[in-house]
């Protein structure tokens, strides 16, 4: 993200309504195109109004950025808009989230919603009623507009308004292409926009996908885009699950994401941390109304790993339950039928087997004895190349390793551990302060125990 830039996000629904006199394909295509064209005019009309969320400000982008609040005039820089947004008091008092905001480049985005002014006179004469009597199919839906633009914070409001309207128009054009490409008869799949934060220098892009068509059927499209944006062709960047998660939108499932980002790096001289890449959810004891206290730690670690593969877009299936995990092991023949419904522990071998059976993911198994320091290098390499969470089992415990750090000068090693034995609520403060997610030193390892590590490998796919 470019420093000194502001991100504005504009959302709203445009009503899409058209009359099809026949179901003849060329006719349908013509009518659809004409309807999109009319929406384009609507978006450029003077009656379009942008509402600045959580503020009393309304902007008329097609009237030069004229605004309601007196202090906002069209030639003021757009960063002035931020001061008018009424922020949630609770949020600003939490120091931890302030730190998170610094690290998260999309923090402080300005949200706007679409409105229309009905008192804006376009047609000046008294109303008329027209009765049409042609039989037709009425196609009706709303288009979920969602535009994101990144502009200099010093850019004037009137220019930014123009940029936003331009973004709406080009999104309509993208939606038209997608709608026509995937249309069958009178079934119009609703085009849905997704935002992706691609590695520099590309940055923020928005891609429109048709609703209801799974990622697996959209590979050709993704190949085109990968080549357009010069993205590597062996890992997913543009699957729906890879879509950028905006900081102001809470996750609906209630699981915490990446609690480790709220921690300070270990205070090591010349220490460089090697961390998990992407996003995972924290799974631990007692979640989902399953009381697995005392036996489910490896299952939870496995769930954390599955959540990683889902959120990086490799799989579409939900994180498996304890039952599904056990079922998978019986299916591959690793366990007998009596295993189902039991409270038996599993180890890294079983974790690897389930990842293979349910997700199609292969893993490397590593044996470590007596806290072997050299294994550190392998772990660091793993985080660099694969970046997946590691499940570690040994003795009577299982944990998840999210990262390692090592000091060149002192030789000290630290391990970033996510502990599945936590039984409390999704309280970020407790989890980070009490070390349920935290950096541990070598004393964390039992010197007399043997450890097995499961290192999941990324499938080569987009």
């Amino acid at each position, binding site marked *: 993200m470019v420093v000194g830039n502001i991100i504005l996000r504009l959302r*709203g*629904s*445009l*009503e*899409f*309504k058209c*009359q099809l006199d026949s179901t003849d394909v060329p006719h349908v295509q013509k009518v659809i195109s004409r309807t999109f064209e009319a929406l384009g005019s609507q978006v450029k009309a003077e*009656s379009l*109004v942008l*509402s600045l969320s959580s503020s*009393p400000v*309304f902007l008329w982008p097609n009237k030069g950025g004229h605004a*309601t609040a007196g202090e906002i005039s069209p030639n003021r820089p757009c960063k002035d808009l931020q001061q008018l947004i009424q922020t949630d008091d609770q949020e600003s008092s939490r120091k931890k989230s302030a730190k998170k905001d610094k690290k998260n480049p999309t923090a402080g985005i300005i949200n706007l*919603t*679409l*409105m*229309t*002014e*009905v*008192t*804006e*006179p*376009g*047609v*000046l*004469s*008294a*109303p*008329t*009623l*027209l*009765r*049409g*009597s*042609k*039989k*037709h*199919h*009425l*196609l*009706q*839906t*709303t288009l*979920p507009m969602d535009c994101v633009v990144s502009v200099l914070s010093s850019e004037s409001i009137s220019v930014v308004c123009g940029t936003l309207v331009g973004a709406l128009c080009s999104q309509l054009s993208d939606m038209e292409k997608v709608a026509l490409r995937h249309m069958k008869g*009178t*079934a*119009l*799949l*609703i085009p849905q926009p997704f935002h992706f934060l691609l590695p520099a220098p590309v940055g923020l892009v928005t891609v429109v996908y048709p*609703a*209801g068509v799974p990622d697996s059927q959209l590979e050709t499209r993704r190949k085109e885009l990968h080549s357009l944006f010069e993205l590597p062709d062996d890992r997913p960047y543009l699957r729906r699950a890879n879509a950028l998660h905006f900081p102001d939108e809470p996750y609906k499932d209630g699981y915490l994401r990446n609690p480790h980002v709220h921690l300070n790096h270990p205070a090591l001289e010349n220490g460089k941390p090697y961390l998990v890449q992407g996003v995972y959810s924290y799974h631990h004891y007692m979640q989902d109304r399953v009381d697995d206290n005392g036996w489910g730690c490896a299952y939870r670690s496995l769930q954390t790993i599955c959540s990683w593969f889902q959120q990086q877009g490799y799989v579409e299936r939900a994180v498996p339950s304890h039952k599904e995990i056990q079922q998978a092991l019986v299916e591959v023949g690793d366990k007998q039928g009596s295993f189902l419904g039991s409270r038996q522990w599993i180890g890294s071998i079983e974790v690897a087997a389930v990842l293979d059976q349910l997700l199609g993911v292969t893993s490397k198994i590593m044996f470590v004895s007596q806290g072997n320091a050299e294994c550190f290098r392998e772990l660091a390499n793993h985080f660099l190349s694969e970046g997946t969470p590691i499940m570690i089992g040994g003795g009577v415990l299982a944990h998840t390793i999210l990262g390692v750090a090592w000091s060149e000068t002192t030789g000290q090693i630290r391990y970033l551990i996510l502990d599945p034995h936590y039984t409390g609520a999704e309280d970020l403060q407790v989890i980070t302060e009490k070390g349920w997610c935290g950096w541990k030193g070598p004393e964390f390892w039992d010197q007399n125990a043997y450890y097995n590590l499961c290192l999941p490998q990324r499938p080569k796919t987009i």
Partner: protein
Amino acid sequence: MGRGYIVEDVVEKYLSNLSVPGASCVTGLLIGQSSSQRDFVVLAVRTPQKDTEGQGSPSVSRGAGNSLEHLDVEWVTEHARQVSRMLPGGMSVIGVFLVTPPELSKEGQNTLRRLIFAVDKHISKGRLWSLTEEDVTEKVTLHICSKTRKVVCRTYDVRDPKSSAKPADWKYQSGVCTSWPLLTCSVGLNLVFPVLEMHVLPQDMEKCMKEGLQTWAKQIEDGLCLINGDAMPGEVELLGGQKKNAKAVQQTFRAQILIPMAEPQSERRLTASVKVCSGSLTLKGMVQCRAYLHSNKPRAKHATEVIKRDVINTVSSRVEMFLEDLLMEGEDKGSVGVQQVLPRRVFAPVPGMSLCVCDYMFPDECVSDVSDRLKEMLDWETPEDSIDTSQEAVPEAPTIDLKNTVVQKNLKAKSTLDARPKTPSEDPTEAHKSHKTYYAGVAMAAAIALLATGTSLIYLSD
């Protein structure tokens, strides 16, 4: 503790000038506004005579009309409904009055009770907006003894059919409404209502229009209202800036209505909905809206409420009138595919006050028709040049699809258009009691006579 009614001096004059010969009874309406603290009455209008021969001389008794039993309640309620259509936002029929000879005073109270409930029920029919908890549901009944001129004022809660009479104060004052703030706006309409396959026009036209307008009315009700360009919080006092003893002057406020373009609450679809339709109804044009507020510390939320209600009322009134007229005329086979002009709104000043009332002119009517109607409904003389017909322009040319070559051809042929044919079946003297007929009386006769004076209908071929 009863309600207090503050009544304009002119009402006292009107009521005392009502000539009520002998033992006959006179009914009428009381027009004004109710606020939570106080109620205001600005106009009193007697129920017009049913007999058109007796028009203009209110002293003609109708023989059997001496007894209260022969009082035509339906006639009174129909008059109330017609008058309601002539009132801008904020103003409404808030009560009824009854003048009886002293011996009928007691029975008169029962009559008043019947009348007020019937009137309220009738004028609420077809209303597209809903009452809120803050709306005052107490209506006033005024009994005047024809001999002693003694006034008895009581209120009933029309929401409760079992409610009993509560005493209320009736106080005359001058200049009650001189400083009533006025809100104005003009609302653009561009609505397309589908006529689903199962419906048959013209019978189901009313149903289709009603359904469509209901959705639109909800949007307006839920919309945001700006007053003089400002999004005021609801509790802010509209007249806040005025000094206490400043000269009472009427302020005008410009209202703007913004509607969010948001996705409807219903479940997320993957494809556009498809409906088979046999036709469509398109309502296009601009309506001019006005509303008055009282001067007793009105708040922004009251202002937005009255102007929104006027917007909804003016559209539903003229659609109702149009449909009633269509019903009376009999279905014109040529009207399909024809853009018909709905009645347009005109304004007339209330004598001696800074308020306006409105009326609706059909395309084939002229100012003298309006003047006649005002005399009949509101019982006052209006000089024709004081009637403002300029607010809503007559559509000169088709306002849709000028690129359509068929339309262009018809524009050239416009000069040869005939007036809309009317079936001369109605007997102008057959003053109807039926609810469905538009209370035409003299106006109907005048309209037929004025056929030749040109129309503003535009014909479009299918």
